[in-house]
């Protein structure tokens, strides 16, 4: 299937003697996970629409190392980080945008000590700026009055104190944003952080994603918005577990914006 996405790589920019405004760090989920790829494409559509001169690393991108570091494997993390830093510095990258809060946190906070200093922005903050600068407009019609609840990803919220950018975007859709009881700094984890995404949970009496999804569904929201591909996967599974598939949708904030603009 073809699409009309324009996704230049950093190598192509350099070949033309140009420098991208910003590097879009896609991340492993965004590159390989079927659900997360949709988020990636939605975000790229918005970048294309706003005329942002961005580049991706493509095959030169590699795991940021977040799951390795959180699993305790500092060695593997630093190998990944240093390889990525070499690539990024090689292209003279100054600014990075990513739709994954885990990559965001690692690139922003943990790369500087290893020689990687970039301005790193989460895609929700980036989109907010595009709108503020008039490069992107949102038509709220499609989501007007729809009940949307927002799940705070730990690595965006508590880890980096970003609570408002995604909410501002949702409110721009004229949607009715309903908060869960545990939100913002008290937000409950979806269960995927700290490399849990890649293993079975320890024995307990419930799965964390189910606990969180129940709370989200209890708000009466038709859409659960998230800003993280891991949270998206976990809560999508949660919605299946509580048998609300078809009634409650899990969407990334970028998908909401792109969908509102009929992209």
């Amino acid at each position, binding site marked *: *299937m*073809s699409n009309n996405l324009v*996704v230049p790589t950093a190598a192509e920019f350099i070949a033309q003697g140009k420098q991208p405004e910003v590097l879009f760090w*896609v991340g*492993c989920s965004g*590159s*390989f996970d079927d659900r997360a*790829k949709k988020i*990636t*494409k939605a975000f*790229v559509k918005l970048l294309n629409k706003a005329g942002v001169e961005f580049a991706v*690393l*493509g*095959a030169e*991108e*590699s*795991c940021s190392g977040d*799951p*390795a570091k*959180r*699993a*305790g*494997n*500092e*060695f*593997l993390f*630093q*190998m*990944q980080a*240093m390889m990525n830093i070499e690539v990024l510095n090689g292209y003279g990258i100054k600014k990075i945008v990513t739709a994954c809060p885990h990559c965001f*946190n690692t690139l*922003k*906070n*943990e790369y500087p*000590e*290893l020689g990687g200093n970039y301005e790193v922005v989460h895609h929700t903050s980036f989109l907010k700026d595009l709108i503020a600068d008039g490069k992107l407009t949102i038509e709220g019609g499609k989501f007007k009055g729809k009940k949307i609840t927002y799940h705070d990803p*730990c*690595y965006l919220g*508590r*880890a*980096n*104190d970003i609570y408002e950018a995604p909410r501002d975007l949702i409110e721009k859709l004229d949607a009715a944003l309903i908060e869960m009881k545990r939100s913002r700094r*008290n937000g*409950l*984890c979806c*269960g*995927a*952080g*700290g*490399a*849990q*995404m*890649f*293993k079975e949970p*320890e024995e*307990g009496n*419930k799965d*964390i994603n189910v*606990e*969180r999804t129940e709370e989200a569904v209890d708000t009466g929201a038709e859409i659960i918005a998230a800003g993280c591909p891991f949270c998206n996967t976990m809560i999508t599974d949660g919605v299946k577990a509580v048998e609300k598939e078809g009634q409650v949708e899990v969407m990334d904030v970028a998908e909401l914006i792109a969908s509102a603009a009929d992209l």
Partner: protein
Amino acid sequence: MEYIPNIIFTLLLIAGVGFFASNIKKMIRNIKLGKEVDRSDRKGERFAQMARIALGQSKMVRRPVAGFLHIVVYVGFVIINIEVLEIIIDGITGQHRIFAPFLGGVYDFLIATFEILAFLVLASVIVFWIRRNVMNIKRFIMGELKGWPKNDANYILYFEVVLMSLFLIMNAADLTIQQGVLAGQFTSEAALHYINAGSFPISGFIAPLFDGLGFETLHIIERTCWWLHIVGILIFLNYLYWSKHLHIMLAFPNVYFAKLTPKGQLTNMEAVTKEVKMMMDPDADPFAAPDPSEADEVPAALGANDIFDLDQVQLLNAYTCTECGRCTSECPANITGKKLSPRKIMMETRDRLEDVGAVINKEGEWKDDGKTLLNDYITPEELWACTTCNACVEACPIGIDPLSIIMEMRRYLVLENSAAPTELNVTMGNIENNGAPWPYNQMDRLNWSKE
């Protein structure tokens, strides 16, 4: 003969404070078993944080009921200490209410304030006791609080009830004597020692119980309460070292030294950076002899197996924890029934530290007791249940970071023992081989753009 009480008092005071100081010295020695960590940066921000969170209790009130009651007890404790200062000076000098002549009307106001606070503390402490023992609040009845921790919490409350009651009864007896002197009933020299000072809005209600008692009886009641009160305070002071109640002192340095970097940022392991840089440096000489100055050094463990591998701030965290359980009640793993409890991580770390300290006290130096923090106190199952979501760190009202300890122990498990859960080994193998946690080819990373 008339100086005997002063001498006894002074000796008691010296013994009480001295014994406490010697225990605090041991505590500091224990904390220094940890690795040094540099938190000498950003002093202004650290002081501001201490003022806001420790002094100002800003995170306590996030839970309004417990927070409000705690502030009452905290303010009561701090302000009533002014009265304890007077009691100490009285005790040493043999005076009675030594501040009264200097302060005049202010003194009446102060005593009235102390009394009202004492009453409020008493009321709050009773509510605390009910919350802990009657109301079945989950964080107060969980497994790790069984036994000593539960008793410890209750002993603290009983101490406060007794101390506040003694203070008020003492004042009531004092007031009755003062009234007797004013009415000309009591004329002995000892009775005239009770100067007419203070305002007693609370003990005024207790005083009528003493109506009709003679001076001698009132004198005995007043003195008994006075002595029990100050001796009680000295005992309570010395109890702190064995109790979770140490937080009344340690909360301040603990908040001061707390992490200021973003919560999501885990520490960088310098030792690993060195190795990785060497590995990635094409000019590195693999057969180079080690720097002779470093040749004899035993390399430090990667990660934490025991308290010696943790840093001093983490060990201070362990002594500071007052076991309130706010961390655990917000922990997603704990909420869903996993074994992990951030509070237990802190309690076990302190228990281990105390056990190591006990060996040093006995033997004069550390002798391996065959145990380690990892496995003997904290199990891998607890550590692997953590999602690193930082809810525990956010919840702690006094800046404790249980996540940092969990991470150090995971590092030890993986880097020293290669003991990661199987699925994580697969994940890490994938990252190593194809640059993603799943087995996809790195060359396919851009395929989504064409789908």
